[in-house]
């Protein structure tokens, strides 16, 4: 349990650092560290598959792309646009609403005895696969369709327009 509190402390520390560091590249690096602590949480819960997938997809692919874009743009203090007060107020309101929603949902969601003591075998690959392909087959396939449509859209956007190319 003490390990959990240590990792949880690290998670919160790193996520705060993500927000408070000035340099965007540092921000992304702290975000990577945050995701790494998530992976440790999953391992503590014996959700091996989820841990490794979080590791591969978030740390290994998505954050690499984030870093890639940030390094290409080479953001620094000089290029940072001046933010008007209006944008700041909008930001505070949006953040506040999100916070209220989160607190409300946590309040509404009673922790039941079943979720408090998780089934330690459910996170293994075989069990997860069985649940995904029987009980949750429809949501699983729908989400894959969603990803496919996003992919088709990306290809369509990236494709050169024939007419402008020739003309």
């Amino acid at each position, binding site marked *: 349990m003490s390990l959990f509190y240590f990792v949880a402390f690290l998670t919160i520390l790193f996520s705060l650092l993500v927000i408070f560091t000035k340099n965007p590249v540092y921000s992304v690096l702290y975000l990577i560290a945050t995701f790494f602590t998530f992976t440790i949480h999953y391992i503590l819960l014996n959700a091996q598959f989820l841990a*490794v997938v979080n590791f*591969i997809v978030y740390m290994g*692919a998505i954050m*690499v*792309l984030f870093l*890639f874009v940030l390094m290409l743009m080479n953001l620094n203090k000089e290029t940072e646009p001046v933010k008007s007060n209006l944008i700041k107020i909008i930001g505070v309101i949006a953040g506040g609403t999100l916070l209220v929603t989160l607190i409300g949902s946590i309040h509404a969601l009673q922790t039941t005895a079943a979720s408090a003591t998780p089934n330690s075998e459910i996170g293994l690959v075989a069990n997860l696969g069985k649940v995904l392909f029987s009980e949750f087959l429809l949501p699983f396939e729908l989400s894959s369709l969603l990803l496919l449509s996003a992919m088709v859209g990306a290809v369509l956007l990236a494709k050169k327009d024939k007419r402008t190319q020739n003309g």
Partner: protein
Amino acid sequence: MELAFLFEKLILVTILFVLTLSIAAYSTWAERKVAAWLQDRVGPNRAGIFGLLQPLADGGKMFFKEEIIPSGSNKWLFIAGPSLALLVSFLGSAVIPFGQNIELFGRVVPLQVTDINVGILYIFGVVSLGVYGIMIGGWASNNKYSLMGAIRGASQNISYEIAMGLCIIALLLVTNTLSFKEIAEQQHSWHWNVIYQPLGFLIFIICAFAETNRVPFDLPECETELIGGYNTEYSAFKMGAYMFAEYINMFVSSAVMAVLYFGGYNYPFMDNVNALLGPTWGPLIGVAVMFIKIIAFIFFFMWVRWTIPRFRYDQLMDLGWKILIPLAIANIVITAIVITVVDKL
């Protein structure tokens, strides 16, 4: 029991660590020797017999060179880059089974540091982290060439990871497990996966070349275009760390290919040999076979390096996205159909 288990793992980890280091060190020697042989030369032969002390000489030179940290660079990240590259490259060898269970001093010892049931995904994750060392180091150097190298490295790794993952999915359809140990056990004697997945192996090895940044996919550090790419600004031991990480990556990916496709420690007629030599010496022959396979793959990496010229950047992307990924998807579909048909019959 608990203490003995810890002790056993500690010894295994130490042996593996030293072995990885020495194989990586001698890969630098072998690279120069192989390059020389393929070019009708002799190669290093002054330090020790056959130049066998060359890695020591190189290491000594690296240590005593001047450490230069450019003044415009980001100091912390400049140091973090090579450290991360070296650290991540070591992680991979933890899940690779180097032999059957072996009987030593009355105990049955598995020759694998840990057998997690998502072993393949773990390797895959570690490989995908490998690019951070290059990216962070390249960016922190504050040099345009380094940044170009870092960006090329990132985009190349991400592109080829997809094809690699798709190959692994086809392989998983055949093996039905994600654990390295079980995959190795399934390929008993001559039932090697390469027989069932030849196309998958071809795509996998091409992706392995791209993931380890070896020629013909060494665009992140190509000397002729980017004067060293991500390690342009590095000197002394930090430069050595990057080089070492590359050779360790080569060792790990050779081991992964040997286990996934070439049966790992399995060889034809191994049952007869095991029956003849007993439970201690039999598995040791298996370990030797495994290392012969790994060394053969390392030789193959070097052989290709001194044969095939580097790809152009657009050719690299074309190969990855337009050829390898469709081929890998076709491979999955064909494998799935064949397995279903065979099951029905």
